[in-house]
């Protein structure tokens, strides 16, 4: 197993400040904020208006033009999962997000990819649809959650409090910073996504995750999230009605993903979405 001590930045660089470009409602941003807090790393936070992105952000992430971007020692790092692994590599003396064992690391990475590639878009599709389309999307979410529940019950994460073990790890951060939307979407759409009876272990994990101090410091207040979600839902359904008469997208999941990425939320919800309280004030 490769020692992460070999991958650190030089001490002078490690001491250099961290700056995070993010968006208050972006779960990808929350992942990085949470990871930094878990590792006890100080950082400056810059809230981006996703409807009107700063020159600095576009310079730091020319490929995707998205948040989050972490800037450290003059270098920009986009993509949340890349950033999280960088934090482990660059600060090996802090609590690690990835487990030590190579096979366990592969397992954590697999489910992180599943969260981003399958579960996330499925939840987004529920939020972006109504009627039969939504029912199909809900079934998809339930299938995905059932797979995770099975791993908690009998599989890779059996008997664990968190996916990372006794303490949260990479998968907790990735899955957790996103799962808080489940309750919000349930409230806004009136659809049941995480039934405590159907997914008792996932439910218990989510409650334990949300109770952590660092998580409570990171996730925005639920009424802010609800307001935001209601606005986006309204926009999506109006746009959906218009899009229904347009040529079908080659790939429905991609269309749903495009509709439900945080940057699109803000574009569609208008200037009001990105505004509000300053960065540090999450409550």
């Amino acid at each position: 197993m490769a020692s992460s001590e070999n991958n650190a930045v030089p001490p002078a660089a490690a001491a250099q400040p961290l700056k995070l470009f993010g968006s208050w409602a972006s779960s990808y941003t929350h992942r990085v904020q949470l990871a930094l807090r878990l590792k006890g790393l100080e950082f400056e936070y810059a809230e981006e208006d996703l409807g009107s992105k700063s020159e600095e952000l576009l310079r730091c992430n020319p490929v995707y033009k998205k948040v989050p971007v972490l800037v450290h020692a003059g270098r920009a790092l986009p993509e949340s999962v890349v950033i999280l692994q960088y934090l482990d590599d660059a600060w090996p003396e802090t609590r690690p997000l990835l487990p030590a064992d190579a096979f366990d690391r592969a397992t954590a990475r697999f489910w992180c990819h599943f969260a981003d590639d399958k579960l996330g878009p499925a939840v987004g599709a529920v939020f972006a649809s109504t009627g039969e389309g939504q029912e199909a999307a809900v079934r998809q979410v339930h299938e995905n959650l059932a797979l995770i529940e099975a791993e908690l019950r009998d599989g890779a994460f059996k008997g664990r409090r968190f996916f990372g073990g006794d303490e949260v790890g990479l998968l907790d951060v990735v899955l957790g910073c996103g799962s808080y939307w489940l309750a919000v979407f349930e409230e806004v759409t009136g659809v049941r996504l995480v039934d405590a009876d159907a997914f008792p272990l996932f439910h218990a994990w989510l409650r334990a995750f949300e109770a952590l101090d660092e998580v409570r410091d990171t996730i925005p207040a639920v009424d802010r999230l609800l307001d935001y979600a209601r606005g986006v839902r309204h926009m999506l359904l109006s746009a959906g009605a218009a899009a229904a008469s347009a040529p079908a997208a080659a790939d429905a999941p991609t269309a749903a993903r495009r509709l439900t990425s945080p940057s699109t939320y803000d574009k569609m919800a208008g200037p009001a979405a990105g505004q509000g309280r300053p960065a540090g004030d999450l409550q």
Partner: protein
Amino acid sequence: MAGAAKSGHQLQLLDFWVSPFGQRCRIALDEKGLPYEYLEQDLANKSELLLRSNPVHKKIPVLLHAGRPVCESLIILHYLDEAFPSSAPLLPAGDAYARAQARFWADYVDKKVYECGTRLWKLKGEPQAQAVAEMLDILRTLDGALGDGREFFGGAAFGLADVALAPFTSWFHAYERFGGFSVEEECPRLAAWAKRCAQRPSVAKNVTPPEKVYDFICGLKKRFGIE
């Protein structure tokens, strides 16, 4: 299985001959000098072993190490680096930022190339033109990432990002033919990089010749009833 005893490391790869994702793993295994048993899978009639090894996605490639499955090509590449640390590394040791960059570009290839390429050969008319435009953008972005004077994405050493993209160089020819463009003209640095990769024994041995990829795609189009 007699094959498993061949390799002291007990490595097996469940794969499909033309899969660029599987080829990434084959390239990595060869770069690292790790012997393994190649097990060709019938994707129309999936084996018990494949279904048991990747029950979530039921896809190849799957690496089996002493019978334990590791799924998804980029995850397999990381696993090989971490489980066999004395072998030639795909990620540079001692440089957290370089590792992050390698992961970024490998992930970019994963997110962009295959999906856009599929639309490019599958669709017609306006959606195809859209896919061609996107593919050119992707290739130019990769060309830009290489920059001038860099042999490989990470510099002098052939690494994670190179392994992630190398199998797709065979698919460039098909994209060119269906899309009506030339990678050499549009992205000379990328074309030069592709030639350098092709000279490596691990790539030459494991990547499907471009004409065969083109024929394979034509076969798929026929099967899907696409003109």
